[in-house]
C-alpha cells in the first residue's frame, strides 16, 4: 500500500499535466480527492502501525546495494498526516483563492508534485532515497514560488530559495556519502544499530556538519534563513503549505530521524540547540519589525522552526515528544494564520499593516480565526501552542540544570524570544482587526465566502480542540512519533495545568511582558529598525552572487580573448609548468655526459644562419620578408642534410620548403593587412620568458632522448640484406620498392587521389571564372 500512496500524487500530476487544462478552475476540487484519500488511509493507520512501522522494500540498484525502501512509523505518520491533511485544505482553499483566469492546472500540477515528493521524504527508509525526494521538493518549491512569474520579486525569490537549498542539499549529499562510507549502509534502521561505530569514526564531525548544513538550509535556520522571506512571493496557499506547514519542516524531520544515529554527542547537541535558539531569537525580533503581514509570518515561522530545532537537539525523550507536539501545533495554527492573511489580502487588496485596521466588523469570521490562532502562537493557555511550548520549556530547564552557572541561559533566551513572539502575535489580530476601520485599503473590506473560510476554520478548530484536550492527539499521534525517534516508548505529559513551576513562570513572564510592552511596540519597532539596518546574511548572499559573477567576467575577459597568440601562450605556459614540474619531481634535469663529435665549421655557420633567420622572422615588420626568411631557415636545414650526406632527406626537405614558401607567397597576396597591436612591456617579457623556457625544455628533451638507445637500429638489417634479398646496392631504393613496396604503393595511390582532387578543384575554379566572365560579357552586351 505504501508505494501506491506514494505514487498516487505523481500519477495524478501526470493526469493533470495531460488533461488538467480542460477542467478549468474546478480542477482543484477534483484533485482534492488525492490528498483526501491518502489522508483517510493514514488516519486508518493511526494506532494500527506494527512496531517498527510499515515497511516496503524493493531492489533498485543492486550494484550499490541500494534498495527503494520505505517505512511508515510514528514520526513519518505525523508528517504524512500534516502533508495530506493540510494539502487537502490548501487545495480546497486555492480553488477559490486563485482567480478564474489564472492557470489552475499548472498550480495543481506543481502542488501534487510537491506533495508526492514530500511524502517520499518522510516515507524514505534509505537516506539516499530521502535525498532524491528532498531535492524534488526544492524544485517543486521553485516552480511554486515562481508561479506568479510576471513579478520580478517572485523570480528572484524563487531563485534565491533554490540556490540556498540546492547548496545545502549537495552538502548533505556529501555528508550522506561519508556516512555510508563509515557505516556501510544508508538504511536508517541499520544505521541506528551502528550508531556507536559511526560516532567513533574520524568522519563523524564532517558527517554531522554536512548533514546539518542540509537540514538547516531546508528549515531556514540562521544564517540560511534569508530564503524563506523571499519565498513569500509565492501565492499564499503555497506559503501556508510549503513554507510553513511541510517543506520547511523537512530539516526538522531529518534532524529528528537521525538523532538516534548521530545524536547524543556534544558535536550534535550543541550546534543544533545553539542554532535553534539563535534562529528563534533572530526570527522573532525580525518578525516584530515587519509591516507586511506575510513577511511577519515568514519570520515568525523562522523563529518557531528554530524553537522546535532546539528541542530536537536536546534529544531527551521528553524534548523529542515536546518537539513533535509543537511541530504539529505549529503546522495547524500557522497554516490557519497564513490562510487568513491570504483572505485579508484577497478581500482588501493589501497586506500592509499601515493600511489595515478595524476589519473585525466587516470580517468577523476571519477575525475570530486569526485571533485564536495568533493567541495559540503566543502561547496563551487553553490553546494548543501553550501546552507544547510549556513542554519544550520544561526540557530546556532540565537541560539548563546540567550547565551549572549558565543554567539560566537556555530558558532565558527562550523566554525573551517567546516574549517577542507574543508581542507580534498580538499585533497580528489587534492591529488588523481591532480599532477603527481606517478605510485606507485598496478595496473595501468584506467577509470572504464560506468556502474560502472553511480551511482556516478547520485548522483553527484543531488548535482550539487540542488546546482544550491535548489527549486527543498525544497518545495516538505524538507519543508514537517521539517513540520512533527515541527508540524507546515515550509518553509526554501534556496537561493544561502543571502547577506553578519554572516553565509556567517562563510562559507567564513572556505573556505579561508582552502585554506590558505592547503599548510601546511602535517605539520598540523603531528601535529595532535602527539597531539592524541591513541583513548581514542577506548581504553575504548578494556578495557571493556578485563576486561569482565578477570573477566569471574577469576570467572571461582576461583569458578568453579570442586571440590565438594568447591561447598559444597559455598552452606553452601549461607545458612548461607541467613538464618542468613533473620532470623535476621525477629525477630532475641532469644530463649524462655527451659523447658526440664536436661541431665542424660548416655546421656552426649553418646554425648561425638559422638562428639569425629565426630572430629576423620574429623582429621584422614585413610579412613578405618573414616568409622569405623562414625559407632561408629551411634551406639551411637542407644544407645540413647535404653536409651530412643524406641526399634523399635533403631533396625531400628542399621540395617541401620550396613548395611551402611559394604557397605562402601566393596566399600572402590575399591576406588582409597585418595589424600589429602594441604589446605591453610586461607581456613582452612574459612572452620572452615562456619562449626561452619552452625552447630550453625541448632542447633538453632532444639531448636527453638522444642518449637513450634501447635496441639495435634497424639500419644494420637493411645494410646486410639489401643485396642478398633485394638484389640492389642502393639501399634506399631497395627499401622503397622492395622491403616496403606495399607502403610505397599506398603512398603513390594517396598522392594520385590527392592530385586528382587538386585537378578537379583547379578545373572547377577555372570553369567558374570562365562562366562568370561570360555572364559579365552577356551583361555588358545587353
Amino acid at each position, binding site marked *: 500500500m505504501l508505494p501506491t500512496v506514494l505514487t498516487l500524487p505523481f500519477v495524478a500530476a501526470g493526469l493533470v499535466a495531460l488533461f488538467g487544462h480542460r477542467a478549468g478552475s474546478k480542477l482543484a476540487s477534483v484533485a482534492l480527492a488525492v490528498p483526501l484519500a491518502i489522508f483517510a488511509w493514514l488516519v486508518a493507520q493511526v494506532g494500527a502501525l506494527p512496531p517498527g512501522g510499515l515497511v516496503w522494500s524493493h531492489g*533498485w*540498484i*543492486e*550494484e*550499490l546495494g541500494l534498495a527503494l525502501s520505505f517505512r511508515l512509523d510514528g514520526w513519518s505518520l505525523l508528517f504524512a498526516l500534516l502533508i495530506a491533511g493540510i494539502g487537502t485544505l490548501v487545495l480546497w482553499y486555492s480553488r477559490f483563492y486563485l482567480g478564474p483566469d489564472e492557470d489552475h492546472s499548472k498550480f495543481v500540477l506543481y502542488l501534487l508534485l510537491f506533495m508526492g515528493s514530500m511524502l517520499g521524504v518522510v516515507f524514505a527508509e534509505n537516506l*539516499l532515497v530521502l*535525498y*532524491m525526494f528532498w*531535492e*524534488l521538493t526544492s*524544485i517543486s518549491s521553485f516552480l511554486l514560488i*515562481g508561479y506568479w*512569474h*510576471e513579478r520580478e520579486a*517572485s*523570480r528572484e525569490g*524563487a*531563485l534565491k530559495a533554490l*540556490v540556498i537549498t*540546492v*547548496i545545502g542539499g*549537495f*552538502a548533505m*549529499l*556529501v555528508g550522506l*556519502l*561519508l556516512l555510508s*562510507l563509515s557505516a556501510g549502509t544508508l538504511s536508517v534502521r541499520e544505521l541506528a544499530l551502528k550508531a556507536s561505530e559511526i560516532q567513533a569514526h574520524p568522519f563523524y564531525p564532517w558527517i554531522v556538519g554536512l548533514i546539518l548544513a542540509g537540514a538547516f538550509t531546508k528549515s531556514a535556520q540562521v544564517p540560511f534563513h534569508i530564503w524563506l522571506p523571499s519565498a513569500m512571493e509565492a501565492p499564499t496557499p503555497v506559503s501556508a503549505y510549503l513554507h510553513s506547514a511541510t517543506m520547511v519542516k523537512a530539516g526538522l524531520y531529518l534532524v529528528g530521524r537521525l538523532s538516534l544515529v548521530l545524536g547524543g554527542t556534544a558535536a550534535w547537541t550543541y550546534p543544533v540547540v545553539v542554532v535553534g535558539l539563535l534562529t528563534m531569537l533572530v526570527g522573532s525580533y525580525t518578525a516584530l519589525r515587519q509591516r507586511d503581514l506575510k513577511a511577519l509570518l515568514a519570520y515568525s515561522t523562522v523563529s518557531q522552526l528554530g524553537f522546535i530545532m532546539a528541542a530536537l537537539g536536546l534529544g531527551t525523550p521528553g524534548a523529542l515528544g515536546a518537539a513533535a507536539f509543537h511541530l504539529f501545533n505549529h503546522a495547524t495554527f500557522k497554516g490557519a494564520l497564513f490562510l487568513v492573511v491570504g483572505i485579508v489580502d484577497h478581500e482588501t487588496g493589501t497586506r500592509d499593516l499601515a493600511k489595515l485596521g478595524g476589519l473585525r466588523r466587516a470580517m468577523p469570521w476571519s477575525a475570530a480565526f486569526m485571533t485564536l490562532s495568533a493567541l495559540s502562537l503566543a502561547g496563551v493557555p487553553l490553546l494548543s501552542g501553550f501546552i507544547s511550548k510549556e513542554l519544550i520549556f520544561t526540557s530546556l530547564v532540565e537541560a539548563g540544570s546540567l550547565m551549572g552557572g549558565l543554567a539560566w541561559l537556555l530558558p532565558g533566551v527562550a523566554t525573551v524570544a517567546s516574549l517577542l513572539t507574543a508581542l507580534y502575535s498580538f499585533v497580528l489580530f489587534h492591529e488588523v482587526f481591532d480599532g477603527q476601520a481606517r478605510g485606507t485599503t485598496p478595496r473595501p473590506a468584506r467577509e470572504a465566502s464560506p468556502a474560502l473560510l472553511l480551511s482556516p476554520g478547520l485548522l483553527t478548530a484543531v488548535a482550539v480542540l487540542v488546546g482544550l484536550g491535548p489527549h486527543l492527539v498525544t497518545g495516538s499521534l505524538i507519543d508514537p512519533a517521539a517513540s520512533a525517534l527515541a527508540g524507546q516508548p515515550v509518553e509526554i505529559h501534556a496537561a493544561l495545568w502543571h502547577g506553578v513551576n519554572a516553565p509556567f513562570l517562563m510562559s507567564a513572564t513572556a505573556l505579561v511582558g508582552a502585554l506590558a510592552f505592547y503599548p510601546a511596540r511602535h517605539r520598540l519597532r523603531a528601535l529595532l529598525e535602527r539597531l539592524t539596518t541591513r541583513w548581514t546574511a542577506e548581504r553575504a548572499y548578494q556578495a557571493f*552572487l556578485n563576486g*561569482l*559573477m565578477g570573477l*566569471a*567576467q574577469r*576570467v*572571461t575577459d582576461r*583569458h*578568453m580573448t*579570442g586571440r*590565438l597568440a594568447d*591561447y*598559444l601562450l*597559455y*598552452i606553452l*605556459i*601549461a*607545458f612548461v609548468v*607541467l*613538464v618542468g614540474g*613533473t*620532470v623535476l*619531481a*621525477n*629525477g630532475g634535469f641532469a644530463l649524462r655526459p655527451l659523447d658526440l663529435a664536436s661541431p665542424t665549421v660548416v655546421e656552426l655557420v649553418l646554425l648561425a644562419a638559422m638562428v639569425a633567420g629565426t630572430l629576423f622572422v620574429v623582429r621584422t615588420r614585413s610579412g613578405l620578408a618573414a616568409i622569405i626568411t623562414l625559407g632561408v631557415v629551411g634551406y639551411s636545414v637542407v644544407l645540413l642534410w647535404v653536409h651530412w650526406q643524406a641526399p634523399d632527406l635533403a631533396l625531400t626537405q628542399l621540395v617541401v620548403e620550396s613548395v611551402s614558401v611559394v604557397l605562402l607567397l601566393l596566399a600572402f597576396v590575399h591576406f588582409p593587412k597585418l595589424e600589429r597591436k602594441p604589446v605591453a612591456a610586461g607581456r613582452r617579457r612574459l612572452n620572452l620568458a615562456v619562449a626561452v623556457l619552452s625552447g630550453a*625544455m625541448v632542447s633538453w*628533451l632532444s639531448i*636527453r*632522448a638522444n642518449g*637513450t638507445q*634501447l*635496441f639495435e637500429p634497424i639500419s644494420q638489417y637493411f645494410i646486410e640484406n639489401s643485396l642478398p634479398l633485394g638484389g640492389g646496392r642502393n639501399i634506399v631504393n631497395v627499401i622503397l620498392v622492395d622491403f616496403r613496396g606495399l607502403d610505397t604503393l599506398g603512398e603513390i595511390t594517396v598522392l594520385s587521389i590527392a592530385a586528382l582532387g587538386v585537378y578537379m578543384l583547379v578545373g572547377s575554379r577555372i570553369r567558374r571564372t570562365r562562366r562568370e566572365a561570360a555572364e559579365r560579357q552577356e551583361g555588358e552586351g545587353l
Partner: protein
Amino acid sequence: MAVTGMNFTLLLPELILVATGILLVLLDLFTEQKRVLVYAGLAGVLASLLALIPGFGTTASIWADMIQVDSLAGFFKIVFLAVTALALLVSLEYVERRQIQAGEFYALLIFATVGMFLMASSLNLLVIYLGLELVAIASYALVGLLKQDGRSVEASIKYLLVSSATSAVFLFGISLVYGTTGSLALPQIAQALAAGAASQPVLFAGMLFLLAGLAFKVAAFPFHMWAPDTYEGSPTPISAFLITGAEAAGFAALLRVFLVGLPGLADAWTTIFAALSVLTMTYGNVTAISQTKIKRLMAYSAIAQAGYVLVGLAVATGQGTAAMLYYLLVYAFMTVGAFAVIILVANSGAGEEISDFRGLSQRSPFFAWALVIYFLSLIGIPPTAGFFGKLNLFSAAIAADMTWLAVVMVINSVISAPYYFKVIRTMFLEEAAEAEPVRAPASLTWATAITLVVTILLGLVPDQVYSWVRLVAGAL
C-alpha cells in the same frame, strides 16, 4: 577468447560506416532530396550497430594487434553510434534551412565517427593517433561548413591551428615513449615500464605530451581555449556531435593510454589528472556564469563536465572507470538532447542568445520541460541520470581516499546551478516576444523524446547499465 589474424567480421562495423560515408557522397550527386542522405546515414549507423553484436563479449586483436575488439571498444562504439544517429536526426532540418552542402556534411559526420571508432578500439599509439587525426580533419571541415558565417570560418581556422599544434605535441609524445620503451603497443609499453623504463625522466615528458594531446581533445584546462570559440561558431548539430562524441573518443583514448599503457607512472599522472580535473571543472563553471549566448554556455558547461569525468582518471580505480563510462553515456544523451532544443529555438527564427529562450514554456511546453530535465541532469539533481552519474563519481573519489575531490565536485555542482537555472528561468518566467507556438519537425521531436527517455531511465533504473559498465571497466 583471443582471436588473431584477419577477421573481417570483427571489422564489419567500421567497414559498414566507411561504405555508408562513400554512399552518402555518391547519393548526394544523384538526388535533390537531401533527406534521403539522413535516412541512408541512419540505416548505415543501424547496420553498424547490428554488426557490433557478433563481436560482443569477445576480446580479439586484428591486424598485428593494430585493432583491438573488446568490451571497452564495444561500449564506446555504442555511444558513438548513438551520438551520430542523434546528430543526423537533429541536423536534418538545420542543414536544409541553412543550405549547407548536405553530401559533405553527412559524409564527414560518418567519417569522423570512423575516426572515433579507431580511437576507442586500438592498443597501438599510432593507430590511436590516426583515429584522432581522422576525427580532427573531418571536424575542421564540419566546423567551417557555414561558409557565409564569419564565425564559423574563424572557428574552423582556430580549431585547425590549435589542434594541429597539439597533434604535433601528441606525436612528439609518441616518439618519446617509443624511444624509451621500444614499443608502440600499449601492453608492451606497460611491460617495459614494469621492467624499469619508468625511471627515465624523458618518459615523463613523453607521458605529459600524450596527456596534453588528449586533454586538448576533451577540452580540459588549460587546453580548452579553442572549445568555446569552436562550439559557438560551428553548425549547432556539429557542436553537439563534437562536444559529446569527439570528447568521449578522447576519454576512450585517455583510458587506454593511461590505464593500459602507463600504469607504471600512475603516481605521477593521478596527481596531474586530479589537478586538471579540479581546475577544469572550476574554470568551466565559473566562466559559464557570465555567458549570454547559449552555445557558449554549453561549451563552458562541457568544459566543466569534462572536469567531472576526469575524476575517474584521477582515482584510477575500476570503480572510477565505471563511473567515467556511466557519466560519459549519460552526458552524451543529456547534452545532445539540450542541443536539440537549442536547434529548435534557432530554427524557429529566434537566435542563439539565452534571452531568445524567453517564454519557451508557453511556445513549446514539451521542449521547455525537456530542457529542464537535461539541465537538472547536468547539475546532478535527482532523480535524473546526471545525479546517478555524479553520485558514482563522488563515491569513486571517496572510496579512493580522495574525499576532497568529491567535495570540490560538490562545490562545483553548486556553482553550476545558477547558470543552468538562468536559462530555465528565462524559459518559464519571462514572457515571449512572440506568443506563436514553435513548430517542431518530427526529427527534432524524436531526438528529444529519445534523449529524454534515456536521461530519465538512466536515473531511475540505472541498475542494468551500471552493471554493464562495471563489467566493461573490470575487463580493462
